């Protein structure tokens, strides 16, 4: 299997309530709340796709999409 890399953080802005759980628990500080109190991936290059944000998001608003390195969009 090829090496995995991040595709994108899918964040449903309508579903996010800005509780900050994802921001707090992200081990690489990838996420932040913007001025509308919605989660945004500000440092996606640091993401290690542990998916703790996705698993702990109480609003089911985050999906961390990954792909194999050799796949092209």
């Amino acid at each position, binding site marked *: 299997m090829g090496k*995995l890399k991040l595709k994108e953080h899918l964040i449903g802005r*309508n579903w996010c309530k800005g509780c900050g*759980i994802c921001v707090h628990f992200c081990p690489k500080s990838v996420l932040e709340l913007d001025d509308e109190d919605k989660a945004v991936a500000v440092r996606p290059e640091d993401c*290690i796709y542990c*998916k*703790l944000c996705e698993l*702990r998001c109480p*609003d089911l608003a985050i999906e961390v999409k990954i792909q194999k390195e050799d796949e092209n969009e």
Partner: protein
Amino acid sequence: MPKTKYDKEYNVKQYLRERFFPHIWCPGCGHGIVLGSLLRAVEELGLDPTEIVMTSGIGCSARISGYVNFHSLHTIHGRALAFATGVKLSTPKLNLIVPMGDGDALAIGGNHFIHAARRNIDITAIVMNNRIYGMTGGQFSPLTGYGQKATTAPYSTIDNEFDVVKLATAAGASFVARSTTFHATECIDLIKKAISHKGFSVVEIFSQCPTHYGRKNKKGDASNMMELYKKTTVPIGSKKLEQDPSLIERGIFVDNKEAPEYCDEYEKIIQTAMKGRA
């Protein structure tokens, strides 16, 4: 350490009624994390959504049944297990999942809870323990515990709390487990095992209520409450318990595969009564 290169992809939206989202729970409410874990467990088990029935009572937790695209019954306060018992006995092949709040399960529905456990009927009860009646404004529940504050106990409660694990075990549940919303992957695993188990399964999940319990008891925001779950719980039999017996154990406490299941026993009675003609 978080797992890196975690390549498991979930698609929980396939089980959601997306038209009801965003959900009604407060920002940071742990119930959404329980919902997510439950749906991931269902996805990992590969269950047919048309063979899952979710019955719920009343309360914040009970709103789960409206969000999932399974068969669902939003019933009366505390009586979700009674409805689930009826559904299960009528069609034993269905998977019954009953999400309950602490008050719904153990105060209003306390009797149904112990008797469902005593019968060992094949139902999965998920007790989402936020230690408060959230929907009605933060009254204390049987799981709030001595010395905690609530809207109806501004000088702190003098009531002791139930231990859900011990209560369910003593009442006869054949699968009993406990986890917290901080341990979301553990929750998925425990819910999977509980659903697969044939018999009455109880999974207690500590779920933060930052709006009422957290605010009244100065536990900080949702993230802080989850950090507290990390600090105050340990896996069953951890060495840390020797130094600090106040730590709460997580994991599987009971997994009895030998106990006779209620629907099976009922089927035997039908066969006996019909002398094999059924």
